[in-house]
C-alpha cells in the first residue's frame, strides 16, 4: 500500500509543480509501471498482492461518486437527450474505430 500511495503522492506533486495536464494518479501509474519493469518483483511480492486485492474490489470505490447522480437527477432529466445520444453514439464510434483499425493493421502485416 505504501508504494501505491507513494507513487500517487509523487504523481500529484509532479502534476502541480510542472503544471501537467494529466491527473496525479495517472502519473503515479506510469511511475509504478516503470518501477515494476525495472525491478521485476517476484509474483508473491506484497505490492502485487495488495494491488490485486484493490483491483478485485475496484467497483466498490465507484459507489460514492456514483451515488452523486442522486444529487443530479434533476439535471440529468433536463439533459436526457444529449446524455443518452452522446453515450450511445460515442461508445459505438470508439468500439468500431479500435476494432476495425486493429483488424485492418494486423491483416496487412500478416499479408506482407
Amino acid at each position, binding site marked *: *500500500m505504501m508504494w*501505491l*500511495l507513494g*507513487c*500517487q503522492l509523487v*504523481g500529484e506533486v509532479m502534476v502541480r509543480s510542472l503544471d501537467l*495536464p*494529466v*491527473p*496525479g*494518479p*495517472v502519473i*503515479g*501509474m506510469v511511475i*509504478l*509501471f516503470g518501477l*515494476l519493469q525495472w525491478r521485476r518483483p517476484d509474483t508473491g511480492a506484497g505490492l*502485487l498482492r*495488495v*494491488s490485486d486485492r*484493490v*483491483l478485485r474490489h*475496484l*467497483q*466498490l*470505490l*465507484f*459507489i*460514492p*461518486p*456514483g*451515488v*452523486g*447522480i*442522486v*444529487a*443530479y437527477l434533476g*439535471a*440529468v432529466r433536463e*439533459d436526457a437527450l444529449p*446524455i443518452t*445520444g*452522446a*453515450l*450511445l*453514439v*460515442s*461508445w459505438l*464510434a*470508439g*468500439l*468500431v*474505430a*479500435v*476494432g*476495425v483499425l*486493429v*483488424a485492418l*493493421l*494486423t491483416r496487412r502485416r500478416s499479408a506482407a
Partner: protein
Amino acid sequence: MSEAMDYLRSSPLTGVVLTLAAYRGGLEVKRLSRNHPLAQPVLVAIAIVGVAMWLLDIEYDEYLVGGSVIAFFLGPATVALAVPLHREAHHLKELAVPMLVAIPVGAFVSISTGVLMVRVLGGGDVLERTMAPKSATTPIAIAVADHVAGNPSMVAVFTIVVGMLGAVLGPTVLTLLHIRDRRARGLALGAASHGIGTSRALHEDPTEGAFAGLSMGLTALATSLLVPLVIHLLG
C-alpha cells in the same frame, strides 16, 4: 431519537457502512442472477444507497462524510492498474504498431464524438466536459473531469453506462462487423468500455481479456492526455 439521527447524519461511519453493505448487496444480486450482465454490483449498490439516504433523510453531502473515505482509495487503485499492465507488457511488442495507432485514434474518436454529440443535441458546456473522458476507466475519468471543470459525480455514472453497453452489446457488435481476431476484439472492448468491458472479454476468452485490460490502461492514459487538447480544439 433525534440525537441518534444527528449522529447518523454527521458520522463518517454511516457512509462507510452504508457503502460496504450496499456493495455486498450488489454482489449478492449478481451471484443470485448467475452473473447476468445487467446485474452490475455498482448499479445495484447505488440504488440501495439512494433508497437508504431517502429513508433516513440523509443529504448527499452528509453521505459523503463517510463516502469520501472510500472514494479516497480511487487514487491508489488507479496507480495499481500498473500491475496488470506490467503482467501484459510482453504483449506490447507483439502488437505495438497497431495498438499505438488504434488506441490514440480510438480515444480521440470517443472524446470528440462525445463532445460533439452533446453540442448537437443541445447540452451545455459542463456536460460536454463531463462527457469527454467517459471512455476511460472510472477513477481516471473522474480525475480528468475534475481537471477540466466537468462534473466528477456525473462522469462516474457515464462510465458505468458505457461499461454496461460494452458488457451487454459489445461482443455482438464486433461479431456483426466480422471482427474475429481475439486481440482486436479485446482491444476494442477495453477501449470503449474499460473495466466492465474487460470483465466481459475475460469471460469470452483469456487472450481477449488480457488485451482488453491492456487497452483499458492505455486508453486511460491517452484519454487523460487528449481530453484537455480536444476541449481546447473544439472549444
